[in-house]
């Protein structure tokens, strides 16, 4: 929130000049300068303010309005008040979608964090070909979700995919992956963790490089071993980066969609139906725009509350230098 704090510390600018011009004869000139200043501000702000107003702020309130109605996108709207919300809360499909989304986050976050941390620690030493390695680990991050989903659908193809073939070589009968209701979420989690690993690694690596070397030296002199240094120095010093990764992963995790849509479409048997997929289906498959908007608002509030709880709770475990 540093953004809001230092915006006051600015040069006085032309406003100060206008205040100095208090003489009666200078009145008109002052108003002219003021008007010019205001017009300049308008010219600078309008190109971004108008799109944000029309494509974010107004639609956001419109979505809330739609969520209070029954509407199929074409016919007339019918006012139902908060009915859509109460219907959703007790709807097993919605509950399932939230559960699958939480399943996704619970599986994804530890995988991507521990994996990313391990690689960041390894790359923070004087390893051979460091920047090449970093580049390779980061490659999936710039690839689109759809490509990742398609490639992993192929890798995890139950009958002809290479993963099950490799598993077969060591005598393990591979699961049905995305074709099996029990394995559809793990398949999505695996592909997502693979894609985001490099992102988490780069964030944590930047955090690691900011830890002062003498801390480690002092600890070693005091006889701290490798693990002790990891838990007593590295992890506490890394907590701001960790906090950033966790908050971002949760915000993005609740909005998981692209890879689900392309890998399973929410199936088989609704076993990987996540919240955003549900919003998409409600709108464009079932024509229930009111319910879809209500669900999207629920999701938004849910994310907001969880993020606020984390920001509040960070004092307990995040140490800023």
């Amino acid at each position: 929130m540093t953004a809001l704090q230092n915006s006051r510390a600015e040069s006085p600018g032309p406003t100060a000049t206008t205040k100095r011009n208090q003489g009666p004869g200078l009145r008109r000139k002052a108003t002219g300068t003021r008007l010019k200043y205001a017009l300049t501000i308008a010219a600078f702000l309008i190109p971004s303010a108008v799109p944000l107003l029309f494509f974010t702020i107004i639609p956001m309130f419109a979505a809330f309005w739609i969520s209070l109605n029954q509407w199929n996108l074409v016919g007339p709207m019918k006012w139902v008040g908060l009915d859509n919300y109460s219907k959703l809360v007790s709807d097993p499909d919605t509950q399932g979608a939230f559960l699958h989304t939480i399943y996704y986050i619970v599986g994804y976050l530890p995988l991507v964090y521990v994996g990313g941390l391990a690689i960041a620690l390894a790359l923070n030493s004087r390893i051979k070909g460091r920047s090449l390695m970093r580049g390779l680990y980061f490659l999936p991050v710039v690839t689109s979700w759809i490509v990742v989903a398609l490639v992993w659908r192929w890798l995890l193809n139950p009958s002809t995919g290479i993963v099950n073939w490799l598993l077969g070589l060591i005598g393990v009968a591979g699961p049905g992956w995305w074709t099996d209701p029990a394995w559809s979420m793990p398949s999505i989690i695996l592909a997502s963790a693979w894609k985001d690993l490099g992102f988490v690694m780069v964030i944590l690596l930047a955090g690691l490089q900011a830890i002062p070397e003498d801390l480690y030296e002092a600890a070693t002199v005091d006889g701290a071993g490798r693990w002790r240094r990891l838990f007593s120095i590295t992890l506490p010093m890394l907590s701001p980066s960790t906090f950033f990764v966790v908050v971002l992963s949760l915000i993005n995790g609740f909005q998981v969609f692209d890879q689900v849509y392309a890998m399973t479409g929410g199936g088989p048997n609704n076993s990987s139906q996540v919240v955003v997929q549900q919003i998409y289906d409600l709108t464009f498959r079932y024509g229930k725009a009111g319910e879809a908007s209500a669900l999207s608002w629920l999701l938004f509030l849910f994310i907001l509350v969880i993020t606020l709880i984390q920001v509040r709770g960070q004092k307990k475990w995040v140490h800023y230098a």
Partner: protein
Amino acid sequence: MRKQRPSITLNILVLLGALMMVFPFLWAFVTSISPGAGLSATPQLIPEDASLSAYAQLFDRLPFAQIVLNSLLLAVLTTIFQLVTSSLAAYVFSRMPFKGRNAVFAVYLATMMVPLQVLVVPLFVEMKSLGLIDTYLGVLLPGIASAFGVFLLRQAMNSIPQDLDQAATLDGAGHFRIFGLIVLPLVRPALATLTVFAFLNSWNSFLWPLIILRTPALKTLPVALAGLQGQYTTQWDIVMAGSVVSILPMLALYIFTQKYIIQGVAGTGLK
């Protein structure tokens, strides 16, 4: 102490991990040049009868070159728009105080919190009433301003000392000149970061183009790819050829801008 030479085991582990990151891409490529892949249960690591027939079929059945161009055009335009709109707004928030400016800036920041999913239905209705369904303008418009971009550039502008523009003001330079000749050149690294983020986001965006585009020839790469697997459920060589085609431009860009991308991402975590 910590920076002692890492053991050989660690080197090998890191290398193995990197291979695991790259292997899916290699495998996608190998599959794309193996006709009939996906039919046999034993994969061939090195295809015996390699051919580019999957690519030929792909370009034959889908206007694929057109689709790549579509995505490229949209990504470039989105990036240019975001650079212009964001830098202009950032200049006001950094250099031109006025009453209520903090409130306006807070509203800008708040728009970052709204997920796209909340906006999808009303945006669709809005575009429909404007007659922009199935048009590029419809895809482009919601992305031409970015609160994230404004925030990023404002931070960069705030870190530039004000002495320079004060000197320019004394010399009679107006805000437009200070913006264009002094401030913008000094925030080039932040502009580069925003360029990369804007381009990647647009290039990879899926939900909004999926909703608004109908005509196959107008579709963007991710949307066309997602449609591809529905059409060719078992022809994995074609699906993988499509994936390879969409990876290549990104890969080329990545190789040349890797440093900027990674530094940009690393920087976002430190704030």
